[in-house]
């Protein structure tokens, strides 16, 4: 290409790169803003014009993890001296800690439910993907089609009968209830993605192993699984993110005990002592793992969002 490139096209290239850089910066402003709000003093979060430079503090995170009341009068110097560092931060903001907030519990729910459902979906999904990849299944395409189409169902549509059934068998607001739903949600995804990965492993390895006297299951366990380790890891991370982010089912099926972070964080808006810096702190903690995972997954993103259909 270099030989045929002319001067105007080189300039055009420079301009394009420049525009890309500008656009990227604009694109990241919302994310930067939420991150920076999480470290602002309360008063600095809602100023006009917006505060860009400030002394970062962790008070929003302390507030996120605690329930507080307004101080009626200033604390005595002696009491202030004895207070722990986080208590001092809250005193400085004119408040007093009464107890811990439910945030940690909701966060923990999110972790448990996402991990268990990912594990279940991935296990079932990998077996099924192997089955579809290596054996003749009558009406294979129709079954795969059916499996993927379950993922396309709008949560609100499925939620109405499921809510009634869950209420009947006592699964409303339980970890198990959400785990079952998220397993179903991720299962179709795992089957499609893992089938793509397993299809890429040459069948000759297993055939050689079978000739050597491995059983079919051993061949799957000792040859195919290790070969698809990258695929399994990528699929696991994708499934985890899906379950981690899910909102609609969590909103309708849980209210307290098994509630996850996505419905909890917004519910803090307008509940008295919570302000935007605290919401931003919750959002920051919630989004941070997703950002890390996105970077880990960057080579597989295209595959993931197209259910393994497009590999590049």
């Amino acid at each position, binding site marked *: 290409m270099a030989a*045929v490139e002319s001067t105007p096209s080189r300039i055009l290239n420079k301009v*394009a*790169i420049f525009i*890309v850089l500008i*656009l990227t910066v604009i*694109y*990241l*402003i*919302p994310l930067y*803003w939420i991150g920076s*709000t999480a470290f602002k003093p309360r008063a600095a979060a*809602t100023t006009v014009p*917006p505060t860009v430079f400030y002394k970062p503090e962790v008070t929003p995170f302390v507030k996120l993890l605690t329930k507080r009341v307004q101080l009626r009068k200033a604390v005595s110097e002696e009491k202030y001296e004895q207070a722990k560092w986080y208590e001092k931060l809250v005193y400085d903001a004119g408040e007093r800690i009464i107890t811990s907030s439910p945030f940690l519990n909701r966060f923990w729910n999110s972790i448990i439910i996402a991990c268990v459902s990912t594990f279940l979906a991935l296990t079932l999904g990998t*077996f*099924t993907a192997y*089955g*579809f990849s290596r*054996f003749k*299944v009558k009406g294979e*395409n129709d079954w795969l089609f*059916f*499996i993927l*189409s379950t993922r*396309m*169902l*709008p949560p*609100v*549509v*499925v939620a*109405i*009968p*499921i809510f*009634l*059934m869950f209420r009947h068998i006592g699964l409303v607001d339980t970890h198990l209830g959400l785990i079952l739903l998220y397993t*179903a949600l991720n*299962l179709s995804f795992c089957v499609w993605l893992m089938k793509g990965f397993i299809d890429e492993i040459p069948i000759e390895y297993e055939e050689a192993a*079978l*000739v050597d*006297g491995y*059983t*079919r*299951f*051993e061949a799957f366990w000792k040859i195919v699984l290790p070969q698809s380790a990258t695929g399994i890891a990528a699929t696991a991370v994708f499934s985890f993110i899906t379950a981690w*982010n899910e909102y*609609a089912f969590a909103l309708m099926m849980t209210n307290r005990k098994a509630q996850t972070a*996505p419905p909890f*964080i*917004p519910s803090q808006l307008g509940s008295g002592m919570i302000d935007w810096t605290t*919401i931003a702190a919750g959002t920051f903690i919630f*989004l941070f793992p*997703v950002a890390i995972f*996105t*970077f880990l997954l*960057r080579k597989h*993103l*295209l595959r993931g969002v*197209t259910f393994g*259909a*497009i590999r*590049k």
Partner: protein
Amino acid sequence: MTATAATVRRGLSDLAIRNMFVVPTIVFLILINIFPLFYSLILSFADYSAVSGRPPNWIGIQNYRELLRDPHVWESLYITLKYVIISVSGQLVVGFGVALLLNRSIPGKGTITTLLLLPMMMSMAIVGLFWKLLYSPSWGIINYLLGLQNFVWISNADVALLAIAITDIWMWSPFVMLLSLAGLSAIPKHLYEAAAIDRASRWFTFRRITLPLVTPLLLIAVIFRTMEAFKTFDLAFIMTGGGPGTATELIAIKLYNMAFPQWQTGKSCALAYILLIMIIGISNIYIKYLNKAKER
């Protein structure tokens, strides 16, 4: 397989293994997804509220008849259609545009691409929540950067839908970009070289080489986003809850309101079925195109 057929097999037969591997998944999906749908199909023919304690009163297709005659349902579908058109066309323009710009050697291209892809990996609900902060009329960063003083976005019936669509465009343009980039980078370089030798104009090259070769992947992106936009619940529910008034009451929110706060269980099951048929229609087209892309 011929090599294995001759050997004496230990362990389970292939058929048993296959069934053991495939059947649990299918049974599980039928139990969690299909069985409930049968249940709601039955309830859709009843006048029934799940909180009243009264048994369902079977009324045939009256729920469907009422829904199809209800101007609010049509209004809601109209709002949804508007939303789908604004947000998908926005994503197509921004996503494909950025992909065209990115499709060259740029220092740090991988990192830039990944940074741009961050929004689409995030929770719709949480994104909606913090865009509410950005949209704040008096101290929001959006009004500040655009130089609009005290312009009301979220609680303004005229622009609330647009505000949600803009957030959706921010979040999902990267998806279109990702697929477009895959399509663009798969175009053989020699086609462009041949065009350059023939002194073809830029526009001609774009229209006759780039566009036709990217279209299959663009189509997949557009169909998928159309389906997702049609189903939108999280983003709009968090940002506006359907308001102000019914200005942003997308069909999924209408359904939620009917099913949960209002507890019109029978009627909402009927509406869910109407929605389901539309979604199955779009998703069939989508999976068909996906399979076509796979065969390439």
